[in-house]
């Protein structure tokens, strides 16, 4: 990928403090990845693997019992002439943030104050959520909720311009009769329609990055692909980078360029979409593939992976052993002895001792 870097996460780690137990739950560890302009990547993992925590971390939206952060979330704004990024915050143009060689500005999202964070949210980086029925404010009109994101980031804009823009967005997400939808309340729309509204909100300011946290999980099977096609089509037309998060690996096959497999807070495998699909390496990825509905014959029971996720508060285990140890069908004696690192195999990366060189 030789286009521009947009987001770079290095050695990222996050933990929740659980007060009643007086323990830390290490939700994400050793997270490293890059996102390029207009690239579409997916994070795939079962429930509890830390997908939402990762998405929230990028926009600093995690619940406030998040206590420890390690690593960096470096964002490279791409919008040229973004006055706020350039002038208002001298912080972003100081040497620290400006690289002479590549002539790029960047900053670590963790170090931003509330004001600059609000500038990034919904403008440079947007997010859409899993459950369409709780994502919108039930007492505000749909049109108002779309206008809000426009008004948040466009100071000198007239009412008429905002209205026109909302209508344009509503037609872009292929909602019929946008003037009528504008006046509706969320409970008057279907799940699919609301998810379209959410996409309109997220893309209103043509952000550099869109994070979609299980955007189709709550929708009917037939709708899933319609919404995903729309989403990837729009993202493509704006050159927005996409981080698609899902627990359903088959969903991402036709929509993304690169896949990360997340297990219990760690990336255990990553590769180009076709590598992951045609040549899965990690025992967990292989199991995921065989568990999918598509590969199971009619009448046959869906296979499940036995045992549960490891206890993420158990520091000795998660930092010393292979995270998949207790469920792995291919484990051998050596697996007990040390923790695997990510090993590179023809561009594909896998965290399993079977591939140690």
């Amino acid at each position, binding site marked *: 990928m030789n286009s521009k870097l947009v987001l770079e996460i290095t050695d990222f780690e996050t933990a929740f403090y659980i007060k009643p137990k007086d323990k830390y739950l290490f939700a994400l560890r050793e997270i490293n990845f890059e996102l390029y302009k207009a690239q579409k990547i997916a994070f795939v993992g079962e429930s509890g693997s830390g997908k939402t925590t990762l998405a*929230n971390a990028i*926009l600093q*939206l995690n619940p406030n019992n998040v206590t420890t952060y390690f690593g960096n979330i470096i964002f490279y704004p791409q919008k040229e002439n973004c006055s706020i990024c350039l002038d208002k915050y001298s912080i972003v143009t100081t040497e620290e943030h400006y690289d002479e060689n590549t002539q790029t500005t960047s900053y670590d999202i963790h170090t931003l104050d*509330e004001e600059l964070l*609000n*500038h*990034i*949210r*919904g*403008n440079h980086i*947007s*997010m*859409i*959520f*899993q*459950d369409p029925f*709780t*994502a*919108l*404010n*039930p*007492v*505000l*009109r749909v049109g108002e909720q779309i206008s*809000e*994101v426009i008004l*948040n*980031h466009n100071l000198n804009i007239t009412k008429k311009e905002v209205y026109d823009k909302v209508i344009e967005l509503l037609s872009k997400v292929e909602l019929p009769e946008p003037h009528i939808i504008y006046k509706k*309340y969320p*409970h*008057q729309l279907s799940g699919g329609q609301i998810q379209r509204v*959410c996409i309109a*909100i997220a893309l209103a300011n043509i952000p550099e990055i869109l994070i979609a946290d299980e955007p189709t999980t709550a929708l009917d099977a037939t709708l899933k692909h319609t919404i995903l096609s729309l989403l990837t089509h729009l993202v493509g037309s704006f050159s927005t980078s996409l981080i698609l998060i899902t627990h359903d690996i088959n969903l991402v096959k036709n929509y993304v360029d690169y896949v990360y497999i997340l297990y219990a807070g760690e990336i255990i495998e990553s590769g180009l979409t076709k590598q992951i699909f045609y040549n899965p390496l990690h025992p967990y990825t292989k199991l995921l593939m065989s568990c999918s509905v598509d590969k199971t014959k009619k009448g046959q029971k869906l296979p499940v992976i036995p045992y549960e996720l490891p206890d993420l508060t158990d520091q000795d285990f998660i930092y010393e052993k292979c995270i998949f140890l207790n469920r792995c069908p291919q484990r051998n004696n050596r697996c007990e002895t040390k923790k695997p690192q990510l090993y590179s195999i023809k561009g594909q990366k896998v965290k399993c001792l079977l591939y140690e060189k």
Partner: protein
Amino acid sequence: MIKLLLNRIVVLFITFIGITVITFVVINISPGKPQDMMDMSTRISFEAKQRLVKLYGLDKPLHIRYFNWFLRVIRLDFGTSFKDDKPVLKKISERLPATLLLNILSLGIIFFVGCTIGILSAMYQNKFFDKLTTIVVFLGYSIPRYWLAILCMIVFGIKLNWLPISGLRSVNWEYLPFVGKIWDILKHLILPVAISSFSGLAGLARYVRGSMIEQLNCEYIKFALSKGTQRKKVVFYHAFRNVLIPVVTILGLSLPDLIGGGFIFETIFAYPGMGRLGYEAIMARDYPLIMGIGTITAALTLLGNFIADIVYVYVDPRVRYK
């Protein structure tokens, strides 16, 4: 929606009739008769008493009396007071403004202060402010209002001599300048309003806190934040608009308590309102006046509830557009 409101009006009307029937029956079966007061006075002759009994039909059966009363009331004729023969309606209308003033002020304070405290304690959950208000709220719940009223009268009125403790105006009110007149009334209002709103305020603050915390955990809050909306706006606009829905209902429900409490409360403060008038009327078994006050009180309460219903429909679009 119109159907919904029409429905409510019918229900409220039936409730209203029910309340007047019950009041009527309770007054009449409670011990003591209006004649009793006159019995004690030797100056009223037996014949005069009999005349009174006839005039008000006190010798007729209960249901006939209610029916007669009802027929007169729909013509807005509440009769005259046993005590001084003044029209009941006139006596009430003299007192009503003071009571309305007290209750509207109390409701306003309950709403604004209760919501503010509730929101702030939700925002600073388990911090000092939150813990402090939790204690105050607990006291507000558990201390009897009348006891607190007397305590405050002793402390602020008698010991510290900061505030007047009875009535609504000072004796020299007539001679004060305009601003002084208003200030004088305000001073008289402080204690009654503070105390009559205290427990309602405590309850509401507690409720708003819980409801706010619940709303702030909703996904739409995270979505609003992810749009770059300022936290202040997310709390006071997005979340509060949703908290407002149950708050309207609660305020509507607290109305009877407020007005009902007024009977004893106004008496304690010698407040020139309808409540004290009602208390005196009850003590004197002044049937027409009691019924008049009961009816007006019921009508006001139901009107308040009706307004709450309308506001409720207005703040919750899910009711408006089914």
